[in-house]
């Protein structure tokens, strides 16, 4: 074989055309230069960011720490934190893309500056990232961090699997990031509908990037869901019955079950599309006996439960936040748990409403329309329960509560527009318009993102031992809410005026005022993200003023607040014995909190493992090889993963014993510190006096 032949085999179909600036250099004209500069700028930021990170890690000699304390760690709290960090990085990119799209549509009357292909890639990556690499990692991270603490467990059921799930998700995210430098990404939207994404219409690498990124994420999510479900079923502390679990755990359980049953249809849909594209199968082609409708059914069989995978954890967060920051027990706990289960079950019965207009019979549409409207009932129950929890509570308007308040109002509006869309005859009018785009952003931004940001503010002190700065947090929350309203409410109007979604340009001057207002909203949302960054920087710089070593900064009600902040590796020095709901509140009220346990025992914790990072790298290599037809790389990646798993079977020394004496010393010194720390009332919550030792609400009223 000649050298050129060897190089061809090594690089597959990767060539100079893949670089984002190549078109602009070889075919310079106004359009290719503008689009080339934007794409190259984005790729440049990514490359620069990577280089700066590598430089900083090397400069401060942090590689060893990163490897030992984070990448190979099987601690559910650290894995959760890494998930959330991944979500924030991906959020930054997808927000930037959203702003470019809003700018394009604000000047898009009669043209604009983006090429249709570039615009197509932007809405495809924006949607794919926001769902699979922002929302999913964020909620998986929060569940990972919070749920084991709330049920009184020391870790999830399968710590190594947890690390593998994170690695697979991160590999998928890395693949989407790689598509910035080695272009192009798919133009087929986040749902990747064939036949457009078949080779006949999209012969380039775009849909292949989408297929493998989504497949990696989907596998990671299936495994995470199994892990969480088994953890909740099998690892609860003694006495923690199902109906004593905090509501967030109920939502986590329902989400896990949805993940177990709803992710396989997605994995299957993407795999079948891959078989079509790579081996010439005829699943979804419009020739050779293929059936594109089959894809729509499979995708939304995943896609609709996915909506509830996204929203239920936020419902759990709001339940915790509203109850804690009102100083009241959750109103209607049982109805909230049952409503969660109801929503989870119903979510499998409504998928056809995503394609009412695709030609099935009116009767079938009616069945699915009614099923869709039914979901409004348990959701309405929840909204009333939250409001009645607030009613006559001593409500503190902290950052999580601002998000919750914004959510309550905006989510009801979004839900009402959902009921409109659930009616098939009305859906025919609004289908594929910006009305739909406004609706699902109206559900997902208040119903997912605000919830996750509230969770971030609420549990940050438990993760890092200090509170987040309040002022920047409030600015962020208010700007998110206002920015969302400005950016998306005009889209309802545009949709009713008939503006189709996913269009690069328009020719109707009446749209212009709406797109301009939406642009202002996008600017405000960017400002909100900037506030979050500023908040984090200020908080880290001034962390000594906000430390909460006792661990209970908000007068919390569930078990996670009964342990130090940051939480020790083993979570609970002695596993708690649970007798009620809100066990920590009751312990505080009866003066049983912070007592020394009678005895300590050795604690068994999982040892670090490199399997997670290895599978992540191998998964990325395999996927990247498949995208570019570098078969050697794809096969090596697959073999490396397989080898790592087989080798793991021979590992025997997988746990580490932490001696009772060590646990005793750490726990007793913390308890001594707790006794020496003054308790504070709620109005001092956001002052440096708050060291995390709270006067319980009931006693504060008496004093």
């Amino acid at each position: 074989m000649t050298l050129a032949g060897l190089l061809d085999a090594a690089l597959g179909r990767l060539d100079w055309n893949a670089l984002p600036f190549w078109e602009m250099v070889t075919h310079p004209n106004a359009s290719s230069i503008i689009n080339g500069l934007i794409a190259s700028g984005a790729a440049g930021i990514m490359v620069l960011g990577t280089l700066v990170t590598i430089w900083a890690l090397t400069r401060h000699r942090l590689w060893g720490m990163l490897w030992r304390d984070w990448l190979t760690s099987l601690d559910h709290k650290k894995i959760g934190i890494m998930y959330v960090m991944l979500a924030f990085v991906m959020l930054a990119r997808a927000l930037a893309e959203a702003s470019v799209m809003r700018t394009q549509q604000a000047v898009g009357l009669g043209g604009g500056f983006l090429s249709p292909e570039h615009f197509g890639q932007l809405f495809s990556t924006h949607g794919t990232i926001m769902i699979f690499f922002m929302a999913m990692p964020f909620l998986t991270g929060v569940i990972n961090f919070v749920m084991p603490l709330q049920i009184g467990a020391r870790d999830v059921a399968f710590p190594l699997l947890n690390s593998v799930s994170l690695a697979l998700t991160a590999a998928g995210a890395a693949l989407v990031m790689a598509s910035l430098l080695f272009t192009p990404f798919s133009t087929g939207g986040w749902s990747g509908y064939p036949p457009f994404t078949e080779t006949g219409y999209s012969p380039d690498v775009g849909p292949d990037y989408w297929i493998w990124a989504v497949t990696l994420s989907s596998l990671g999510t299936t495994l995470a869901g199994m892990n969480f479900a088994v953890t909740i079923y099998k690892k609860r502390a003694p006495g923690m019955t199902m109906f004593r679990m905090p509501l967030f755990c109920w939502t986590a359980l329902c989400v896990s079950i949805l993940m177990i049953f709803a992710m396989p249809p997605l994995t299957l849909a993407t795999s079948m599309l891959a078989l079509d594209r790579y081996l010439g199968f005829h699943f979804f082609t419009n020739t050779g006996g293929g059936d594109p409708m089959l894809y729509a059914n499979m995708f939304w069989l995943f896609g609709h439960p996915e909506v509830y995978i996204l929203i239920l954890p936020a419902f759990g967060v709001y339940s915790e936040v509203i109850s804690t920051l009102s100083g009241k027990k959750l109103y209607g706990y049982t109805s909230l748990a049952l409503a969660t289960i109801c929503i989870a079950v119903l979510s499998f019965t409504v998928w056809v409403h995503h394609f009412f207009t695709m030609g099935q019979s009116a009767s079938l549409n009616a069945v699915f329309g009614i099923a869709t409207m039914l979901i409004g009932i348990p959701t309405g129950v929840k909204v009333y329960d939250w409001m009645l929890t607030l009613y006559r509570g001593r409500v503190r308007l902290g950052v999580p509560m601002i998000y919750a308040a914004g959510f309550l109002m905006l989510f009801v509006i979004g839900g009402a527009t959902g009921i409109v869309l659930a009616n098939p005859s009305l859906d025919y009018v609004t289908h594929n318009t910006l009305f739909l785009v406004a609706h699902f952003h109206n559900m997902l931004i208040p119903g997912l993102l605000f919830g996750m940001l509230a969770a971030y503010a609420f549990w940050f002190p438990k993760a890092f031992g200090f509170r987040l700065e309040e002022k920047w947090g409030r600015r962020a929350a208010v700007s998110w809410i206002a920015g969302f309203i400005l950016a998306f409410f005009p889209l309802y109007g545009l949709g009713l005026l008939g503006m189709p979604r996913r269009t690069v340009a328009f020719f109707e001057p009446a749209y212009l005022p709406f797109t301009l207002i939406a642009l202002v909203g996008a600017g405000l949302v960017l400002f909100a993200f900037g506030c979050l960054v500023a908040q984090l920087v200020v908080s880290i710089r001034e962390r000594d003023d906000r430390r909460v070593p006792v661990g209970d900064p908000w007068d919390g009600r569930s078990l996670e607040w009964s342990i130090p902040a940051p939480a020790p590796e083993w979570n609970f020095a002695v596993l708690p014995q649970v007798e009620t709901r809100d066990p920590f509140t009751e312990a505080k009220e009866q003066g049983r909190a912070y007592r020394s346990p009678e005895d300590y025992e050795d604690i068994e914790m999982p040892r670090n493992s490199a399997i997670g990072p290895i599978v992540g790298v191998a998964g990325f290599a395999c996927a990247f090889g498949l995208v570019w037809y570098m078969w050697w790389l794809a096969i090596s990646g697959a073999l490396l993963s397989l080898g790592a798993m087989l080798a793991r079977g021979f590992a025997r020394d997988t746990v580490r014993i932490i001696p009772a004496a060590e646990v005793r010393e750490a726990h007793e010194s913390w308890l001594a510190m707790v006794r020496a720390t003054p308790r504070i009332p709620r109005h001092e919550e956001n002052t440096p006096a708050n060291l995390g030792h709270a006067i319980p609400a009931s006693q504060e009223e008496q004093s």
Partner: protein
Amino acid sequence: MNTETGRHPGLNLGSGHAEAHGEAEALVFGFWVFMMSDLVTFGLLLATYVTMLDNLASGPGPKDLFELKPVFIETLVLLTSSLTYGMAILSLKHDPGRRLRPVLAWLGLTLMLGLAFVAMEAKDLHALLAKGGAPQRSGFLSAFWALVPLHALHVSAAALWLVAIAAQIWRFGLDTPVKTALLRLGVLWHFLDVVWIAIVSVVFLGGLA
């Protein structure tokens, strides 16, 4: 660890294995959950096959392609392998503690039956190609090729796992990780039987009906 729920039902670990029972509790349950997820995959592929039955694109259909005799033999082989796997688990319970363990013999027999199934399956698929039944021919054949070889792939993966566990027995003896791994492989092995019965009923018998 949830102590009051007691031991995981159906574990033949023998007496005096409290520790193994504790671990098996979450591990085997977790593997069941994993199988349920896999069940969704096979269920959807079966549904796809049924919806694709008429999408022949004027290519060959079930009556031109399928033969029941080899399918019947394969079924017998696979079901027998489940029986021998059950024997392996029983001999795990009554392990005499010698170096030459009966459990290894039963596992070896199971492995051979599993590999024989895969080999016969490969031969069938090869014959299918010769009859013009390539997956690229039609939607119907795409659905067939996504389902039946995926099952064979599962059996092959299970066989690989079996070899890995046998190597662990050889290296470590019958320790707790080996026992719980055998219990999980058992769940997979019997599950693949159930899936095969569904495939025979829907793909072959249903296709020829």
